[in-house]
């Protein structure tokens, strides 16, 4: 057994690198003296560790899909792509945390350490092959995020965010575990492969247990990706947390949760017809509700972060549409959507963070007249807003188009109609900020400290894929197709 | 069915009678020992050398007026000492007095609760100890009692950790959690002369365990829960006569149990003391009786050690105590575990 573990260790290198970075950050932080101001070394160590992890994920792309560590984890290119996206998202949020004034100076290295822990949880979740590993991934993701949400010490909104997240997450994790234990009780195993085999032969009596249990199980995953009806924590937590933390929350847990949802759907719900139909009905209802509620509630928001939170809920609705078609094209469209969503969200949150930390809050009025003061940033934000709502020729449009294509191909016309209407509605709140930036007068003429040369350059680099993916999308789509799911 | 019940009944009676019956003796030893260390005489009026003093104490406790103050929460106030003594007596069920013996053709184990778990059960039952104290402190409706109870409870659960790390190392050394197996393994000899007692195999663990049991039983130098000069009498300040006597008994029973555990793991338990081999060769059926005598004498020596330390070392302050438990003993325990595992791994290759 030890020899087998050592042989498989090479597949596990990304997680190990991230864990080592986390320990390194903790050790390095303890060597700083009491009043030392800048913790640059910790920052560079985090970025370096994440870079090494990304390189090792890319190096693993050529290895054949396999399950390892006695069937608890699975290695395939889909999981690797998710891990890469999560690593990139973490790098972006860590950089933002070091630039932002919303996180206290002495807590910046804790942010890195905990964010790395959340990343490991996310990586576990996206390559789970075992109910235990899946639950452990969800818990690691959640528990460490609770602390991140409450990072601003004397801010009551931050404390409220943390508390709401804890309460909600605790209950939902309990429900998920309840569902998992019933699934184990009914089928006798927690390995996904064996569950799949058992589901093929299941009969009506066991289905009476299994369907509610899978519903409860979905509660845990749905809460992580913030889909209706498990979305109520999302706006308060997103608004109350410091903005780098919000950026982190809208990237890493979503990718991880979507990856877990995809794995669960493709593993369990492609074998038994009755279960199939139940699950797809469930997902369709949830997708439709999520899209609608996310969009409609985003209209009346005063705070940009809350608006972005609700809009990310509706994006998750689109992703669930891509998941429920349970085909390779669906998977490909989901991956493409996640890639483009990553870049759009990074740019949007960077600009919102840097503007709102200057003025203390993130209401829409703070963005008045940004076009006259920082034209480059305004243009980029405009582009990202158009892309988020799905206007060609940007990447958001291509992503949504792909999802529409697979949904219509499977003849779910009602869902496609929902999605189309919601995309139109989303145009309103995305363009609200564009209108304010371009057509209104600036409130004040002070310099925004965050928009130095380096930051503007980085934001521009991150926004290049938003345009590029919209134009040269065929290549990337083929590449996303290579991210195949391995269902043994 | 009936003889199973009878067997358990007899074992229970024996295992309860020995500690509870020896409490008066321990009390007397404590007082005379304290007096001797402090160069004074101690109680010597009530019988030859004051040997009937504990009897007088018992009568005092029985006949004192039972006062239930009006400000306490009655139900919990009355239950707390009972709960304390109950939780203190539970671990006795897992402690063996001698090796398993045969009556006719049936193997009889000298412990009341025989499972494969041995030390696990004793440790789990000891973990329930703090509840009586907590309930007493809370039910007294008195800030000082509350503080004393919380401090005592925090101290007990912190030092449980140090003890646990040592017990894990012990598992590795003896390969089993059964106390009989541990004593059998300690009867072999190490390098031919000295017996393979736990104290020679695990010296660091022995010291840690010793410190741990002083803290678990709230004895000096860790007795700030009942520190007379700080908190009046801590969690049992509102208790008088027999209820106080129950707490007192619970503390001594706790001491006895932890000493028995300590002696069984590190000092050979019921393995025979040197010199008894001679008697056994002549009367082979007396071995079990002699094993019980060995165990009891070793525990008695441990009790004297408790009294000795009590009157020799000053009391720890609360923050010093918590620092010692978490920042010193726990890391040392973990390092000890690591070293033990490495040594065992290297020796098995």
């Amino acid at each position, binding site marked *: 057994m030890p020899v087998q573990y050592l042989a498989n260790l090479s597949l596990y290198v990304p997680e190990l690198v991230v864990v080592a970075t986390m320990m390194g950050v903790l050790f390095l932080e303890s060597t700083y003296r009491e009043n030392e101001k800048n913790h640059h070394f910790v920052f560079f160590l985090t970025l370096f560790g994440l870079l090494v992890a990304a390189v090792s994920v890319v190096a693993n792309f050529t290895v054949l899909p396999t399950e390892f560590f006695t069937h608890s984890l699975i290695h395939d290119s889909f999981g690797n792509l998710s891990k890469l996206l999560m690593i990139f998202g973490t790098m972006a949020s860590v950089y933002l945390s070091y630039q932002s004034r919303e996180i206290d100076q002495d807590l910046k290295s804790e942010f890195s350490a905990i964010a790395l822990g959340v990343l490991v949880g996310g990586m576990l979740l996206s390559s789970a092959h075992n109910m235990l590993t899946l639950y452990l991934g969800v818990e690691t993701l959640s528990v460490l995020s609770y602390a991140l949400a409450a990072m601003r010490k004397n801010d009551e909104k931050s404390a409220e965010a943390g508390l709401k997240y804890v309460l909600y997450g605790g209950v939902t994790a309990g429900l998920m575990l309840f569902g998992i234990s019933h699934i184990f009780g009914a089928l006798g195993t927690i390995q996904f492969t064996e569950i799949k085999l058992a589901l093929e032969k299941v009969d009506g009596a066991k289905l009476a247990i299994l369907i509610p249990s899978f519903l409860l199980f979905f509660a845990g995953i749905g809460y992580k990706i913030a889909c209706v009806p498990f979305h109520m924590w999302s706006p308060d937590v997103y608004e109350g947390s410091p903005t780098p933390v919000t950026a982190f929350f809208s990237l890493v847990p979503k990718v991880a949760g979507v990856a877990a949802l995809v794995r669960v759907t493709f593993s369990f719900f492609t074998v038994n017809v009755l279960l199939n139909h139940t699950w797809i009905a469930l997902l369709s209802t949830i997708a439709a509700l999520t899209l609608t509620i996310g969009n409609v509630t985003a209209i009346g928001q005063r705070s940009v972060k809350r608006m972005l939170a609700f809009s990310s809920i509706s994006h998750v609705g689109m992703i669930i549409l891509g998941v429920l078609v349970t085909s390779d094209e669906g998977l490909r469209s989901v991956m493409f959507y996640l890639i483009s969503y990553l870049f759009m969200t990074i740019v949007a949150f960077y600009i919102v963070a840097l503007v709102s930390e200057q003025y203390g809050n993130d209401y829409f009025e703070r963005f008045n007249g940004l076009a006259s003061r920082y034209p480059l940033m305004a243009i980029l934000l405009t582009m990202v807003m158009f892309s988020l709502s799905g206007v060609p020729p940007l990447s958001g449009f291509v992503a949504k188009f792909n999802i529409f294509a697979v949904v219509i191909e499977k003849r779910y016309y009602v869902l496609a109609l929902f999605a189309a209407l919601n995309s139109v509605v989303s145009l309103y709140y995305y363009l609200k900020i564009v209108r304010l930036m371009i057509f209104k007068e600036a409130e004040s003429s002070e310099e925004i400290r965050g928009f130095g040369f380096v930051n503007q350059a980085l934001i521009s680099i991150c926004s290049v894929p938003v345009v590029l993916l919209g134009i040269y999308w065929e290549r990337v789509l083929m590449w996303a197709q290579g991210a195949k799911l391995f269902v043994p | 069915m009936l003889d199973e019940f009878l067997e358990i009944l007899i074992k229970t009676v024996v295992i309860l009678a020995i500690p509870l019956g020896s409490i008066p003796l321990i009390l007397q030893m404590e007082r005379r020992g304290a007096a001797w260390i402090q160069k004074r005489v101690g109680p010597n009026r009530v019988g030859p050398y004051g040997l009937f003093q504990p009897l007088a104490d018992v009568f005092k406790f029985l006949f004192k007026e039972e006062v239930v103050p009006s400000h306490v929460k009655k139900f919990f106030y009355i239950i707390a000492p009972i709960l304390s003594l109950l939780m203190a007596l539970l671990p006795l069920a897992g402690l063996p007095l001698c090796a398993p013996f045969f009556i006719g053709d049936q193997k009889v184990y000298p412990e009341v609760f025989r499972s494969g778990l041995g030390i696990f*059960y004793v440790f789990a039952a000891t973990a329930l100890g703090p509840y009586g104290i907590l309930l007493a402190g809370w039910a007294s409706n008195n800030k000082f009692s509350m503080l004393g109870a919380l401090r005592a409870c925090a101290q007990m659960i912190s030092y449980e950790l140090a003890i646990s790390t040592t017990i894990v190392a012990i598992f590795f050394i003896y390969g089993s959690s059964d106390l009989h197996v541990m004593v059998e393994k300690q009867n072999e000899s190490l390098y031919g002369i000295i017996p393979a007692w736990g104290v020679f195999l695990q010296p660091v663990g022995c010291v840690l365990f010793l410190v741990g049991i002083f803290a678990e039983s709230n004895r000096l130098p860790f007795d700030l829960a009942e520190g007379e000069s700080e908190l009046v009498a801590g969690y049992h300040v509102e208790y008088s006569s027999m209820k106080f006597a129950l707490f007192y008994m619970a503390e001594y029973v706790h001491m006895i149990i932890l000493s028995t555990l300590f002696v069984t793991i590190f000092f050979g338990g019921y393995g025979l003391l040197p010199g008894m081999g001679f008697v056994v060769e002549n009367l082979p059926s007396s071995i079990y009786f002699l094993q019980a005598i060995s165990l009891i004498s070793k525990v008695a020596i441990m009790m004297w050690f408790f009294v000795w330390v009590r009157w020799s070392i000053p009391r720890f302050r609360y923050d010093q105590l918590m620092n010692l438990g978490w920042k010193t003993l726990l890391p040392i325990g973990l390092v000890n575990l690591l070293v033990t595992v490495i040594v065992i791994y290297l020796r098995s290759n």
Partner: protein
Amino acid sequence: MLDTNLTDVSLCLFAAVFAVVVVFNKNPVVAAFSLLLMFIGFGGIYFRLGSVFLTTIQILVYAGAIAILFVFVLMLMNLEETKTFIPTKNFSLFAGIVAILAMFGILTIIIFNNTDYLATDKLPEVSMNTLFTKLFETYLVPFELSTLLLLGATVAVVFISKKRIPQ
């Protein structure tokens, strides 16, 4: 169909009664102590199901560590008595009763339709050996990764609760 046993029924009732006390009692400390007794009741149920090891672990971990922390913190906080959670408005009461009955109905149907594989005499013999073999060989990786969760949670607790040095 189901063979019931007095010990089993009384143990389950014991645990159930104290669970109800935990939810409905007004005094937080009494609720915490009832939680302790409920855990001990569960330990008894595991014992009747044949696993002494699980009983000991339940007492050691749940009753001896988790419940102590609950009791400790609640005593420290010195809360006043809360209002009980029995709803008083008619609709909430009605909805609550319907929900409880529905849940019990579902559970009963599920259990009675599946007694063939829910029966406990088919449980395999679990000793410490088999348990630890599974833990350290088959499920080693989740076991080791849970330490990462603990580490992260410890760091999080420390930085949330430490005092801010005013800048």
